[in-house]
Every structure is written in C-alpha cells, then in structure tokens.
C-alpha cells in the first residue's frame, strides 16, 4: 500500500506541474495574440483572446482539482492554488482589454505606446513561465523575479505618459471615453498581476527550502 502511494505520489505532482506549465503557456499565447491584434488592428484576433480566457478557466479548474486530489504536501497546496488563481485573473484582464478595444477608438498617437505595453506584457508572461520552470528545477528565483520587476517598471513609466496624454484627448462621447479609459487601465493592470504572480512563486520557493 505504501509503495504504491510513493510512485503515485510523484505522478500526481508531475501532473500538476505539467498542467500549470500549459496554463502559463496559454497565458503567453493570449498575450501574444493581444499584441498581434493591436499591431494589425485585427478584431478577429481579439475574439481569439476571449476564447483563450475560457480555455484557461477550464485548465484552472483541472489544476485545482488535481491539487486537492492529494498532490503536494498540505502546507504547499494553498500557495499553489493561490498562484493559479492569480494567473487566472490575468486572463480576465486580457479579456477585459480585448472587449474594451473592440468598443473604443484608440487615438492614433497612443497606438505605438499601447503596442509597446502589449509587447512587454508578452515578454513578462514568457519570463513568468521561465520563473515557474526555475522553481520546479529548484533554482534560485532572484534573477527571474528581478527581470519581471524591471518590465513592470518600464510599463509603469509608459502608463504615466499615457495617463497624462489621455487628458488631452478630446472625448465627444462619454461611452467612448469610458471604454478608452478602461482599455488603458486593464492593459496596464496585466503587468501588475504578473508581478504579483512572480512574487507568489518566490513565496513558494522559500517555503520548500
């Protein structure tokens, strides 16, 4: 009975890790899709982002049920679940960004900077995947989390410029203004939450040492 549990034990954990990895890959794909959508002004791609959010939701539920099925030591489980939930909320912001972009008209002078933000978001999501892999491999996460913080500060700077510029944009229609504002706010929130997620990986890393 015990040996069976031993081998099964390793398997459950590996499954969870695999699933989290594909969850993070989905995130990277979604960020990349959003970036391309903004670059090519392709409204269909925005629909793709929304689809990916649904797929991610399914994946999240699968991971959570796998974890509580008995993977990992009990004291690790809440932290792992919290991480998955944080990543899931990033998808929500991506979806929100996509919706708002569909509804709003982005002033052309802001287009480039918005694209840069989407570009950095994608880089950050890749770095998050790398950070997770490093955690699984038992490596020190310091350099990876620093890289993520660097990206986040870069985006923060751009956000400051954008917010200042926004005030100069003429708004004829309240709803257009609202969607534009929401678009910018959710676009820039993505990086904050990715940073949160990486901080959480650091917490997990420390607790297993």
């Amino acid at each position, binding site marked *: 009975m015990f040996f069976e549990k031993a081998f099964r034990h390793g398997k459950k954990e590996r499954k969870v890790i695999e699933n989290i990895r594909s969850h993070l890959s989905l995130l990277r794909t979604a960020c990349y899709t959003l970036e391309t959508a903004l670059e090519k002004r392709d409204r269909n791609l925005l629909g793709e982002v929304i689809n990916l959010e649904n797929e991610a939701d399914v994946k999240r539920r699968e991971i959570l049920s796998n974890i509580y099925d008995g993977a990992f030591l009990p004291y690790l489980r809440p932290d792992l679940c919290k991480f998955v939930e944080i990543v899931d909320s990033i998808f929500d912001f991506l979806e929100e960004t996509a919706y708002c972009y569909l509804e709003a008209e982005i002033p052309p002078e802001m287009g480039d900077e918005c694209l840069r933000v989407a*570009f950095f978001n994608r880089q950050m999501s890749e770095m998050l995947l*790398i950070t997770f892999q490093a955690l699984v491999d038992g490596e020190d996460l310091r*350099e990876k989390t620093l*890289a993520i913080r*660097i*990206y986040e500060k870069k985006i923060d*700077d751009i956000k400051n410029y954008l917010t200042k510029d926004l005030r100069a944009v003429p708004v004829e229609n309240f709803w257009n203004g609202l969607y534009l504002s929401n678009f910018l706010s959710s676009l820039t929130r993505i990086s904050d939450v990715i940073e949160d997620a990486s901080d959480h990986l650091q917490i997990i890393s420390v607790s297993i040492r």
Partner: protein
Amino acid sequence: MNVHEFMTTRLEFVDGGASVYEAIEKMVDKRIRSLVVRFSGKDDGYGVITARDVVFRVLAKGINPQKMKVAEIASKPLITITQDADLTEASGLMQKSNVARLFVSDGQRLVGLVSLMDVMRAMLIMRARGKYVL
C-alpha cells in the same frame, strides 16, 4: 535583444538659446538627467545637455545658471546608434565614448534614447532568460 526594445521613445527638448536655468527646471520637473538641445540658426544638428554638464560646469563653479545659455555647455554632435543594434554594441559605444546615454536614430530622425540604466536592465533580463530557449 536590440536597442529598439529597450529605448525610451519620449525625448525632451530644449532650445539652445534658452538659459541653463530653464533646462534645469525641465530636468527637475520631468525627473530626467538629459535634454536634447535644438540649435537655432544654421546649425541643424542636435546636441545634448546633461546633469553632469549642469553640475560640473555651472553650479559647482558658482556660475549663475540664469546667466548662461544652454548652447554654451551643450555637447555635440550627438552620439547615436541605430534601432536594430544589439546591447553589446550599445554598451561598447558608451564605454568608448565615455557617455551614459546614446541617442537612437532612424536615418536622420531621432527616435529615442537608450541610457546606461536601460542597458543594465536589458542585460539583467538576458541573464534571467539564461539557458531557457523560448
């Protein structure tokens, strides 16, 4: 990773004919360390005035910044680099020219600025990426 990914696209300008004090005000308000100098008259190029220039050549010498013109302490020509150059080129050029920032040009146009800090940050990211192939 190339310069384009890490540069700042927002450039702040100041006229050559403005006083150093006006330049200082701009630097303080915008929290930046350098300004691109636009020369009036026949000189069509650009120059740069940095915090170092302001401190070492004006303030520390006790000279009144309101009485000095930007053009008198600006450096020119600008040391530039192209958008698709990579980090090693950028850092090498900075070291050779002993400057802390490079201006990014696209032909004759100035499109951005890459600073020492930008290069440092980019290199840290390269380190973090490390052996991971994306």
